[in-house]
């Protein structure tokens, strides 16, 4: 079976989710990963969307974080105030997913603006939304991003969401209760963070070399001594993705 890199990303992300975990879900690959985990090893995964849908059971793959299908059959619907105060700020979210247009070695993310200065940017991006709050308050964060040297940069033009360290300040010095990013899942490799709070490659996708990974990254990467090759996901998981979770190939 020919497995696409995006399918490996989703399957690898799904593996990280434990049953009964409370996960703050974003649209796109994280959404597919959460639904895959729920269909396989984590049937009681508790999914929360920032629009106010809590404990969702959508019949179709939601096309936005506020899809009406998230409301039907959910455990609870609450206000956006409750989501940010009672769920996130209170520490009730165990896993958050984030992505961005730029990321640095510490996992700081930019979703605000690129190039020029803030008032005169080359590209204006949508902004934080709830990302900076997810980054601060989720107990841990998984980052899903395709590897390329325009996105994985030495320095973000703007830090929207905090990673493991900003300048010399650690998360505890910054007053961030959650652990921050613990995994970065790309389309070529998987990374953890080392004692210096920097990304370290721990798994390579099949057929991908260290050199190929480094060539696609804008900063010098650390590689683990125990570097592993990512195993192929079970065929049944790929079938689920293609036949049920994203049959139109919207995200994968």
């Amino acid at each position: 079976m020919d497995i696409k890199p995006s399918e490996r990303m989703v399957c690898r992300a799904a593996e990280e989710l434990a049953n009964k975990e409370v996960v703050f879900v974003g649209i796109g690959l994280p959404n597919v990963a959460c639904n895959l985990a729920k269909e396989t090893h984590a049937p009681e995964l508790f999914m929360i969307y920032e629009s106010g849908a809590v404990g969702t059971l959508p019949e179709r793959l939601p096309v936005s974080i506020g899809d009406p299908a998230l409301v039907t059959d959910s455990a609870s619907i609450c206000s956006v105030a409750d989501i940010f105060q009672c769920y996130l700020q209170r520490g009730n979210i165990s896993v958050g997913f984030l992505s961005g247009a730029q990321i640095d070695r510490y996992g700081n993310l930019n979703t605000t603006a690129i190039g020029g200065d803030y008032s005169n940017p080359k590209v204006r991006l949508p902004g934080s939304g709830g990302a900076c709050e997810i980054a601060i308050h989720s107990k841990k964060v998984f980052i899903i991003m395709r590897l390329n040297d325009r996105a994985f940069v030495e320095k973000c033009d703007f830090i929207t969401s905090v990673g493991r360290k900003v300048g010399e300040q650690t998360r505890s010095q910054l007053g961030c209760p959650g652990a921050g990013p613990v995994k970065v899942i790309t389309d070529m490799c998987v990374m953890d963070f080392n004692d210096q709070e920097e990304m370290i490659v721990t798994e390579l996708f099949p057929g991908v070399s260290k050199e190929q990974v480094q060539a696609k990254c804008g900063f010098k990467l650390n590689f683990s001594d125990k570097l592993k090759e990512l195993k192929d996901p079970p065929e049944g998981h790929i079938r689920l993705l293609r036949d049920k979770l994203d049959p139109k190939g919207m995200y994968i």
Partner: protein
Amino acid sequence: MTKLVSLKEAVAECVQDEDTLVIEGFTHLICHAAGHEIIRQKKKNLTLARLTPDTVYDQMIEAGVCKKLVFSWAGNPGVGSLHAVRRHTEAKYTERIELEEYSHGGMMTRLQAGSMGQPFGMIQSFNGTDIPKVNPAIKEITCPYTQKKIQTVPALNPDVCVVHVQRADKNGNAQVWGLMGTQKESAFAAKKVIVVAEEIVEASVIRRDPNRTLIPEVIVDCVVHEPWGCHPSFAQGYYDRDNDFYVNWDVISRDSKTYADWLNEFVYSSENHADYMKKLGTKTMERLKAKSRMCEGVDYGY
């Protein structure tokens, strides 16, 4: 007392040039009809505030009614960029609008503080981010009990708030189910409130299920009956989100010529929202009409 008026009358009466306006909705119940009517009435220099300015604010920016955007996430939900926002904020363009930017928690807290009559709200949202560096309104205080550093944002009290709801009575008691966004906070924070409803019902219908009333008549100035008033946004139990519209909008809005053509056809040349819906056609309405899913109801007896 009935507050029932047309959308044209409500906008003419409540919205003035230079106002700060919130057209509410967090993906759900976003009253595009109100935005279109404001464009038709050629209001000027509005400050548009909302967590998620989507297609309707993008259209108002392109139509030139907006001087400033106060927001936390300016994108086409589930699709990508808002092209009028980009054309009015990026370095290579000359006609610019002002931006004042927060996070979702930050914007929500501004409206919540406004709704509670507080001068500011407290939040723990900006540790380590660059957002306070570009927005001096975000400040920091020390908690008098724990000495912990906490960020503050100023109350937002919009001149006008438009809230779209599933049903309301003629006095303005308005009921919402499904996603509630920051509708309650915005309505209580605003100086004037326009309620736009899919259905106008007898007061007795509201009173049989009072837990569902999000906005009470005491803060409502105008009530408008405007079915399908949210398209391409949705109203739970009435019609689905028009995802095809949001996807196609990326193509239409990318080019200022096709954008202008769309505004001419669907906004300027439409007499009102019913006219807009007529142009969309019955096929679109049939495609989006919600399939019923009733709940059991509850017993309010004692």
